[in-house]
């Protein structure tokens, strides 16, 4: 403390007390917020989406130079490998064409069988494509900010997908921004089915790149490489969205490597399966 300040402090003890009072109040507010953190308080969530709305355009502007640099790097890489890439793509295209034919066959068969059984299909999905403008998180959370919001029809609970698979779900929306909780976040819990036998489990994030499976029946056998897809239990997601593959075991829980390439996330498809509506009454 500088000398003039300590003199002032002696002269005006009131001021020092006021300072301490303000500090105490602010600390108390911070502690209260920490206690309320799990309660999903409406005011806090509202403030969060207001802030997201305000910063999304700023971040979009800021991310332009970064996007340009990324683009130049990609361009250089692509130019270098153009010929090889072209050949590889031709082969892949051929292979995919075969798969497409097979898929169409299966789809036809599926709808025939569905009709035979009077199966109620999932309602058609509507999707919004959004660019990721903010890499939120830090050491303790995994979430992203996208530049589409309630104006574009994005709502809480919608699935965030990439071309590879499920990335997470929308947990908050502003007018022109939406926050996506990644399935690797410690708060993420997604009901899933594992393997060909479709064993039920819950995919739980732990902030590491590879989430793990909980509540798996201890008597069932699952193997490395088994597919993990959403189960549709809980009604948030439809059944069958691809998530990843079982890769190993960590602390006696099987771990899953998601299909999504976390380092190359740029665009997300936010899909409304019509399952969750903010205005809907809670299911009984």
């Amino acid at each position: 403390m500088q000398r003039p300040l300590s003199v002032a402090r002696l002269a005006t003890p009131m001021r020092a007390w006021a300072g301490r009072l303000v500090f105490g109040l602010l600390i108390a507010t911070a502690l209260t917020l920490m206690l309320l953190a799990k309660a999903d308080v409406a005011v806090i969530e509202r403030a969060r989406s207001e802030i997201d709305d305000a910063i999304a355009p700023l971040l979009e502007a800021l991310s332009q130079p970064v996007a340009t640099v990324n683009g130049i790097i990609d361009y250089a890489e692509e130019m270098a490998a153009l010929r090889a890439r072209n050949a590889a793509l031709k082969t892949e295209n051929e292979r995919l064409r075969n798969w497409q034919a097979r898929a169409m066959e299966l789809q036809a068969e599926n709808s025939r069988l569905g009709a035979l059984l009077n199966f109620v299909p999932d309602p058609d999905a509507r999707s919004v494509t959004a660019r990721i403008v903010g890499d939120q998180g830090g050491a303790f959370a995994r979430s992203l900010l996208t530049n589409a919001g309630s104006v574009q029809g994005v709502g809480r609970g919608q699935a965030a997908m990439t071309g590879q698979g499920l990335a997470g779900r929308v947990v908050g929306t502003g007018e022109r921004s939406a926050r996506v909780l990644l399935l690797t976040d410690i708060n993420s819990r997604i009901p899933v089915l594992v393997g060909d036998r479709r064993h039920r489990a819950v995919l739980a994030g732990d902030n590491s790149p590879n989430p793990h499976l909980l509540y798996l029946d201890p008597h069932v056998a699952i193997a490395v490489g088994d597919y993990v897809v959403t189960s549709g239990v809980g009604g948030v997601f439809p059944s069958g969205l691809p998530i990843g593959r079982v890769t190993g075991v960590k602390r006696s829980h099987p771990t899953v490597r998601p299909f999504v390439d976390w380092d190359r996330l740029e665009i997300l498809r936010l899909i409304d399966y019509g399952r969750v509506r903010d205005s809907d009454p809670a299911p009984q």
Partner: protein
Amino acid sequence: MIPAALEKIDRWTRMLLPGLLALALLLIGMVPIRLAGLTPIAPWAMLIAVYFWTVHRPGLLPVWAIFCLGLLGDLMSGGPAGPGTFTLLLTHAAVKAQRRYILPHAFVVQWMVFALVAVMAGSILFLSATITQRAILAVEPASFQVLMTIAVYPILAWVFVQTQLTFLKQH
């Protein structure tokens, strides 16, 4: 009349500069960069700002500004609100109490003291985040974040010193 008003605006801008600079750092930290795994261990620029300004010019980053920046950072991170705010406030109080012992020393000593502060702040943040989330969090990203923050200190401190020399010369 007008020069007086201009002077007032000028003074206010200078007063707000450390806060605005911290705000800019907060935003820049959120821009998505395609570097593998950087986000979880990105340095905590707010801690550097709070330490630097509390040591050098405590009046320019007052406790309410630290509260606002901390809360904004918490809300923007998508995580629970509170732990970052709480940690920054405690750091401010601790550093302010010791600033007369830190201020006269050379840069390297100030950096070493910052390393100590960062380790303590990192521990408080980790504990309060654990309590808030009610879950066992991984220690590694938090420790790496502390190391990154200590490593980045000289760069940001240089930026702050330049700001101080250029815009905030007069007391």
